């Protein structure tokens, strides 16, 4: 069943109302271009709605403000503009590049929307980890723990073990303490934490052991988590014989990385590139965030897993590019350059080495022109 009667007349659609999608939509709205924002959730903001901590970056990325406030502000700014339609609890289920038709499922009905340009800002999904008992109730992704605690005010357990000491693991461990959950340990398989030192230092001050070169062997329990069996790892990341120990807990929180959500890009016919440093398969995109399908752009974690501040600027870049795509104008080059410089500044430090390596690889994967088939290299 398709309905076109309710489809708004828009020139562009943005799939995903998180930091990247909101910033992209803002550029379009400011340029007076009618656009549609589609998001699966019941509110705008994406992952921002769960972030209780203050953001890093600089003033233009709203540094120092708490994530959920940033989400609210971006949404409020967007909604001040006429010509913006927001569809919440809507799922974009397809895009047909040949006639530029977007398909959205909403309220049990399918809606066809014709668009001249599409921005995919669909974010990334949490990875699972293979270990015995990893399907037990009480083994939750870090995002799930945040959703329970910070969106619905439900304590996800009494005593947690966090797996992963990247920024997400360290931040969520702190938020667990704030929610009244004891964090028994953070286990990190690598010899050093992957997240910012200041996040780890906060946890250490709260007495949380951060156990590097340790990993989980099993989640214990029959129908719920009752504990974790862990092991030390040697310099070759192999379990050290006889080093296993158990930690009683009722919550195992996995923060072991994200993978870009690329289904819609694949459906649209975008070529993907496999770049581990960016989180796995990402839609190939140029510096203006355009994919291999004309008129289809990508921004945020869907373009490569990074940070919210970079997602915001990538959204801005994609938005600026679409404005120029639909209405070529002379100020584009200067605006683009400014945003690109901001993004480069964020990515200049030692902690962004991985991202820079990933982006370099991405440019190496530049696809051949259509008609010759296959990827670049």
């Amino acid at each position, binding site marked *: 069943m398709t309905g076109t009667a309710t489809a708004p007349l828009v020139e562009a659609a943005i799939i995903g109302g998180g930091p990247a999608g909101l910033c992209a939509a803002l550029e379009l709205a400011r340029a007076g271009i009618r656009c549609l924002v589609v998001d699966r959730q019941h509110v705008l903001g994406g992952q921002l709605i769960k972030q209780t901590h203050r953001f890093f970056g600089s003033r233009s990325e709203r540094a120092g403000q708490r994530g959920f406030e940033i989400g609210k502000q971006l949404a409020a700014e967007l909604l001040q503009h006429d010509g913006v339609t927001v569809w919440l609890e809507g799922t974009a289920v397809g895009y047909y590049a040949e006639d530029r038709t977007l398909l959205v499922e909403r309220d049990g009905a399918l809606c066809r929307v014709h668009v001249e340009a599409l921005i995919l800002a669909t974010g990334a999904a949490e990875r699972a980890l293979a270990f015995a008992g990893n399907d037990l109730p009480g083994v939750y992704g870090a995002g799930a723990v945040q959703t329970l605690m910070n969106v619905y005010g439900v304590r996800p357990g009494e005593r947690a073990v966090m797996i992963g000491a990247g920024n997400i693991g360290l931040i969520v461990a702190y938020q667990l303490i704030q929610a009244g959950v004891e964090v028994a340990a953070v286990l990190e398989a690598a*010899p050093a934490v992957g997240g910012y030192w200041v996040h780890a230092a906060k946890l250490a001050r709260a007495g949380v052991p951060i156990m590097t070169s340790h990993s989980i062997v099993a989640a214990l329990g029959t129908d719920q988590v009752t504990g974790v069996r862990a092991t030390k790892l040697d310099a070759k990341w192999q379990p050290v014989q006889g080093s296993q120990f158990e930690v009683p807990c009722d919550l195992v929180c996995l923060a072991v990385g994200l993978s870009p959500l690329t289904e819609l890009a694949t459906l649209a016919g975008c070529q993907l590139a496999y770049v581990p440093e960016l989180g796995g398969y990402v839609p190939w995109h140029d510096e203006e965030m355009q994919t291999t399908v004309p008129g289809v752009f990508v921004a945020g974690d869907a373009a490569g897993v990074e940070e919210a501040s970079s997602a915001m600027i990538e959204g801005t870049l994609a938005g600026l590019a679409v404005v120029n795509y639909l209405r070529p104008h002379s100020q584009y080059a200067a605006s683009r350059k400014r945003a690109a410089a901001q993004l480069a500044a964020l990515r200049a*430090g030692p902690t962004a080495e991985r991202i820079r390596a990933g982006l370099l690889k991405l440019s190496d994967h530049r696809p051949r022109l259509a008609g010759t088939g296959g990827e670049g290299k």
Partner: protein
Amino acid sequence: MTRCSEQLGRAGTPEAADLARILPDDERLRRGPVAIIECFQEIPCDPCADACRRGAILAFDKITDLPRVDPEHCNGCALCVVRCPGLAIFVVDVSGDGDMGTVKLPYEYLPLPRPGDDVAALDRLGQEVCRGKIVAVQRPAAFDRTALVTVEVPREQALIVRGIRAGQGRRSDG
């Protein structure tokens, strides 16, 4: 990045050698309260420089620069303490005549301590090193939900104490 200790590079907590690079000298410490920014990693972050109204945190060249305090301009007002996204800034005051000093630290847990409370004073690894007395707890709306806690400790612990444990535990309800 500058050479850092094993503990800092592995798990984010500075050791004495890392701290020595950023601590103001004894003479300045004895003169009055001063901010100590325990931020050692070149991450893209600069709100501290904006937070200071006295220009005591030097302006950043690049967003990834390490923050630097100008101890001559710092008066220990602690505005930066509640703005730092990493909760990495502390104001230390060992300028008094007696045996005691104070540490102002950011606090985002419940229950909030109250002035007069006797608390466990913790080092950077969460170990109790002494008892502390809460002198002040400030949490105005302008601090955006970060409380500024002033805890009195023996002066020789003022460069060590970086946390407190208030009440029986961290639980806020049943």
